């Protein structure tokens, strides 16, 4: 540890001047008064690194030193010869400036998103009119990963959701002896609302995040730029296949989720309410119209577009490094779930207006 002793006009320095041991010397030296010190005896300094040399040159620069080891003197002169500027101040922003920047930033993001949607639509329209330009391989790849691989989790969760609904409803319905109405409860809520919504939320968490992370990482490693340079439009290679794959996969997953959900409800009804499977299916066929099913499945492509577009857009928003990938992925999942639920609410309003 660096230490010092004062003897009249002589200051005796000693100890180890290493970064690891400087911590309290720093404050002691700060309070030191160098009035009347004419000479420094540095014989006792055992070792010194650049941090120590800096501290030395900061406090004792103008004072003649005797007995300093050759290598220490070299280090001190090296360090004091460096042109080092003062501390970097962070520019403080006032509340108004922060609010203004945040608001304007949000508005700009919205415009960028709109232009991204526009660009994606143009590319989509172009490749739909000339299917030979379609990149089938990435579409199939995405179909497998975003669609087929999600079957177990989507099926299990909607089965459980069916079980829960019918279990919750059972007690209320049994009180009125309206056991058979469990079919309406399970059927309508599953087909119209929960099937599509649950599937969309699972896919947003599962595939939306994957889209963002993939595109974001490619952006960080300049793969996107490389792609552009080779003459492949990232829109066509990365974005369209994802949108198309989800447009196909999400409605199919929704149908599957509907079936599993109703089966879950059916099983629970026969346990809790004694509604047999044949009664359940009879009643289901006569009361649940095909419109309930179509209304539910019809929402799925819209949800799919939202998830794919938000996921890809947030991926392209990545800039810098790993930190930004994580941030945009979070944002992607939160935003796509948010927009899915908003879209669902809008659908409810529209359907009630047209009496569906």
């Amino acid at each position, binding site marked *: 540890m660096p230490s010092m002793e004062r003897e009249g006009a002589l200051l005796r320095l000693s100890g180890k001047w290493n970064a690891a041991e400087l911590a309290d010397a720093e404050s002691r030296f700060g309070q030191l008064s160098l009035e009347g010190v004419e000479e420094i005896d540095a014989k006792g300094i055992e070792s010194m690194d*650049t941090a120590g040399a800096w501290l030395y040159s900061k406090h004792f620069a103008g004072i003649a030193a005797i007995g300093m080891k050759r290598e220490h003197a070299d280090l001190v002169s090296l360090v004091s010869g460096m042109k080092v500027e003062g501390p970097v101040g962070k520019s403080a922003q006032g509340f108004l400036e922060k609010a203004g920047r945040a608001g304007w930033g949000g508005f700009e993001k919205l415009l960028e998103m709109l232009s991204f949607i526009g660009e994606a639509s143009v590319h989509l329209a172009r490749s739909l009119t000339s299917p030979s330009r379609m990149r089938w391989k990435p579409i199939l790849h995405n179909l497998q990963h975003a669609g087929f691989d999600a079957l177990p989790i989507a099926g299990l969760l909607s089965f459980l959701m069916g079980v829960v609904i019918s279990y919750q409803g059972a007690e209320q319905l049994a009180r009125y002896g309206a056991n058979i109405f469990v079919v309406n409860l399970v059927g309508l809520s599953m087909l119209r609302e929960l099937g599509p919504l649950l599937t969309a939320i699972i896919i947003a968490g599962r595939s939306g995040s994957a889209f963002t992370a993939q595109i974001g990482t490619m952006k960080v490693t300049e793969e996107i730029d490389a792609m552009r340079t080779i003459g492949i439009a990232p829109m066509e290679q990365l974005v369209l296949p994802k949108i198309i794959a989800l447009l196909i996969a999400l409605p199919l997953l929704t149908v599957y989720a509907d079936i599993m959900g109703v089966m879950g409800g059916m099983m629970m009804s026969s346990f809790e309410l004694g509604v047999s499977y044949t009664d359940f299916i009879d009643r289901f066929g006569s009361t649940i119209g095909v419109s309930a099913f179509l209304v539910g499945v019809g929402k799925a492509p819209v949800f799919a577009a939202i998830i794919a577009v938000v996921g890809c857009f947030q991926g392209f928003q990545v800039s810098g490094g790993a930190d930004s990938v994580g941030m945009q992925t979070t944002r992607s999942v939160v935003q796509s779930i948010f927009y899915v639920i908003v879209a669902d609410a809008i659908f409810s309003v529209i359907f009630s207006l047209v009496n569906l």
Partner: protein
Amino acid sequence: MKEAIVSITDLCTSFDGFVVHDHVSLEILKGEVFAIAGSSGCGKSTLLREIIMLQKPDSGSIRVFGREITGLSEEAALDLRKRWGMMFERSALFSSLNVLENVGLPLREHTLLSRELVDEIASIKIALAGLPQSARTKYPDELSGGMRKRAALARALSLDPELLFLDEPTAGLDPLSASGFDELVLNLKHSLPLTMVIVTHDLDLLWHVADRVAFMGGGQVLGVGTMQELSKSEDPLIREYFYGPRGRAAREQAWKPR
């Protein structure tokens, strides 16, 4: 005879049956600038990674500062890690921190110095690595390739390591910056008590800066010695390396007095 700061004996490494090191033995002496050369993919970076304990060799022994490092516990490893610095082939700067924070990070982590002093010391390291002070507030993705290398060097120097590993420090630099880097290494060697291990393909760096060079090829060390000694070697691979068109130019250059 100087003491060995790193000594490697009978080191073997393979990736899924692909042999990278086949009984490699090397000694690096205290205070020297030791260079490792060899064709791409011959296992130079892997060797460095094994010395700094980022990767385990299949067999063999590595002693650093006189301690066997294969099979060392994490706590014991930390003491060693503070004594060496590594500049990675692809810089590996932390993307969420600016240059000053990147360079100051090891100091903040391992010492109790005040923020102000850490920033000052980091600024010195940045100047030492040849970066302008205006680069301090920039983030890694706002730097050019060469500046990134210098920032990585500054971070490697942050704790005043006794042993400094540089993986291809001059790759991707313009000739002027590269020769500036040669000067920088000589300067550091002069002013700090450093042992440097440099992996490089840069013939100028090999001729002008390295005290000794190890030439790797075919999973083995084909030759160790000064460049003069190596250039007289009979090994066909080494001859090809030094007597190819580029090798010849650099060698002739090196004989001229500077």
